[in-house]
């Protein structure tokens, strides 16, 4: 199989890679770079478990070929905790019991992180739209919505200071 040179910045670290031409970003992250926090649930872009932030947008990494995103910046769930400090979203997911089995959690966090980066003051409806493509079978979504609403408030009050 033909190999392609690709440079990716993942969680602020630069990687020079030789990838297969049919290699999905999901495989590069999970298998090559060992970011196994990125989950695979359906492989067709329906469940959102593989969501990562690619150049500031939330994407299903199962639907992206790695060679297509040469030079891009990727943020995975492993990159949310900075210098031993959890992201306000992670804190809120803990405080609001927004996690059960935890398999959808990385995708949920990345979809909502992308939302808050773009829109720090989302309505509940806007949060719903942001995670419409993230399936969760455990929580009925309610505590996830509460967590994201709260995290948005915390982030904003943090900025005000």
């Amino acid at each position, binding site marked *: 199989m033909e190999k392609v040179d690709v440079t990716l910045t993942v969680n602020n670290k630069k990687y020079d890679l030789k990838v297969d031409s049919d290699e999905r970003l999901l495989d590069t992250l*999970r298998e090559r770079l060992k*970011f*196994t*926090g*990125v*989950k*695979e*649930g*359906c*492989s*067709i872009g*329906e*469940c959102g*478990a593989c969501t990562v932030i690619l150049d500031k947008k939330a994407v299903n990494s199962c639907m992206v070929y790695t060679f297509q995103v040469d030079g891009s910046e990727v943020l*995975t*769930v*492993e990159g*949310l*905790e900075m210098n031993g400090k*959890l992201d306000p979203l*992670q804190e809120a*997911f*803990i*405080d*609001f*019991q927004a*996690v*059960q*089995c*935890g*398999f*959808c*959690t*990385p995708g949920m*966090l990345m979809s909502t992180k992308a939302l808050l980066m773009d829109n720090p003051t989302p309505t509940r409806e806007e949060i*719903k*739209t942001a*995670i*419409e*493509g*993230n*399936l*969760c*079978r*455990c*929580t*009925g*979504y*309610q*505590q*996830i*919505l509460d967590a994201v609403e709260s995290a948005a408030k915390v982030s904003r009050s943090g900025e005000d200071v």
Partner: protein
Amino acid sequence: MEFAHVNKSEKRVDVYEKVTGKAKYGADMKFPDMLYAEVLHTEYPYAKIVSIDTSKAEKMPGVEAVITAEDIPNNEFGVIIENQQVLAKKKALYIGDGVAIVAARTPKQAKKAVEAIEVEYEELKGVFDPLKSREAGSQLVHDDLENNEVIHHPLRKGDVNEGFKNSDVILEREYSTPFIEQSYIEPEAVIAVPYQENSTVTVYGSVQNPFATQNAVATVLKEDLNKIRIVQNHMGGSFGGKDEVVSSMAARASVLALKTEKPIKMVNTRDQSIRESYKRHPYNMKYKIGANKDGKIQAMEIEAVADSGAYACQTPFVTWRSVVQATGPYEVENVKTDTYGYYTNNVYTGAMRGYGSPQVIFAQESLMDELAEELDMDPIELRMKNIYHNDSVTASGQKLDSHEVSLEEVLTKAVEKSNYVEKYKKYSKEQTGSKKRGIGFAISFRGCSLGAEAIDAAGIILSLKKDGSVSLYSGLAENGQGLKTVYCQMAAEKLGIETNKVNFMQIDTLISPDSGSTVASRATLIGGNAVMKAAENLIDKIKEYIAEKFEQKKEDIKLKNGSIYGKKDVEIMTLKEMASKAAMEGIYLTTYGWYVSPDISWDEETGHGNPYFTYVYGCQVAEVEVDTYTGEIDVINMTAAHDVGRAINPANVKGQIFGGVSMGLGYGIMEEVETDQGYIKSTNFDEYLIPTVKDMPDIDPIIVENPDPNGPFGAKSIGEPTLELGAAAISNAVANATKKRIRSLPLKLEKIIVGKDLTKGGEK
């Protein structure tokens, strides 16, 4: 009663690794020299396997082994009836049966090699409808059996003919429900490692029931149980679904691991998962009910037929729970119930959250609303005239006198909170416009734990370390529901330490106490009682030590705030100091807690007995808006009141309610695994739709607490009760809105508009 940890919404003990991506699930693990296995599935739902030629596949690059049924030491396993094939031998019995498996160095090589396996099939005429497979002379699914019946559970109480004779109104109705996919977001994954840690094989992965899987692997390999190690820690949901299908994967991977002497990784794609894994049983149900003009039920006659698919799997137990719950939480003098399971060549059916109750609750709670309408009586009034109270006697003859029968309480709280009475009146009047609103509710009683299915016992080991921290070894597993947290909270409460000082160890079947399966909403109740016993035994050892060393009376010694207190509540030393001192003196501070549930009974011939030692009660109310032009149903609000005995972690209980309501909503209005002559038509989430955040209404959870004398801190069950009511409540709400009754799930668009299912040529 004041608690330090229990009854508080403490943080989950496993949450940090889950929000940071550090939690390792089955597919995330790797081992040196690991091979990847890929299964070849049958081409036909029912076919004779004439020949299999693996020679080409064996020569493909990277391939290290190819196995067929011939290579499996013992090809049949099962928890109740051992007839599930690890790989199809003479015949493939359903479309998910595996025929051969390849192990290769990369997943791609394995996939390629699978395509090179040549199989000659002789397609056979299968049977795909349980109502046909029950007929005399039907094609047999299993050649060695006389007919296709898996099980028949009868129940007889009083005289139904007499009861119907004395009735003013008699209704006869038929209801049906579809195949449902558990839809855990993590597809099944296992890794079998040969000859590790004194085991013949160690299996890591998404295993719901490590001991059931250990049994299956031991049976298949013909190996001693003490050589089969199943390790389970994080799992991406299960809902009953990662039992036999994962046992089968574990057995397959183990055979390959021993053959190649290398670790074997096997991960299902979603399509493979839906094709291969068992589903919730579809039911066809005939209900006949007789009542007086004043609403008192005189008799109920029920026949329920479940599709077991190709294998027995859990059908005997699933249908048994249906028997107990079929008449609902109502006092009925005369009952005749017959519940059957039949083999077909459909995908096999097994455990899914609810386990035989959501089907009969949909039927019986629809029927109650239909009866209310027939009697021109308010649905609440009709139920109030018939529901169980303290000391009521159930259909099987059990007197409910061991706990608070709180049906009236949950019903009253849920209808009040949802403003049901006012809304029901309003929506029952003629509504203008195409969008009609409706409100409906459903109630249930549910036996906690396994009941008379099996011996019901569990064990816990607690080990106090010399630094005052505690290791907890459990045989019941964390599936995502929060069991680790609940056990740690209980142990911390008893030992007077912080919850984070207790560490729930990963399950290892060679170390953890065999406690049966994490099913039947039994973990908090049964395993929780084992935590209590282990903690009490540990406390006893600590008190004995302190009493002797410090001349204290045992009864004066208390453990709290991480310290040990003696007479007049004077602090003697911290638990840490004590543990360190005791360790140096050679005092052993590890204890076992073993709990066996109170006696229960069941007579298979008559359906009489005390099937469960306690019950939980619930009521859910649904409010809907139905677009009568498009058929679209919008569930606007749901209220869910559940008596849990005591909420060990209220936030977790609410999480169970939200999740259960969501699954019940899917069951009600959208979910169905469509099959056609044994082929599965919806094999991924683009066709099999489960509720997204936008499908979910606001949910009002009401936690009712009547502590149970047999529960740890009074706690009972919550996982399954939350799911069994939603579809019935929504169906009643839709009938209230449209003035039309739909008797089959899901309540799809065309059923609303034209009254029948267009894809199936119309229903009755």
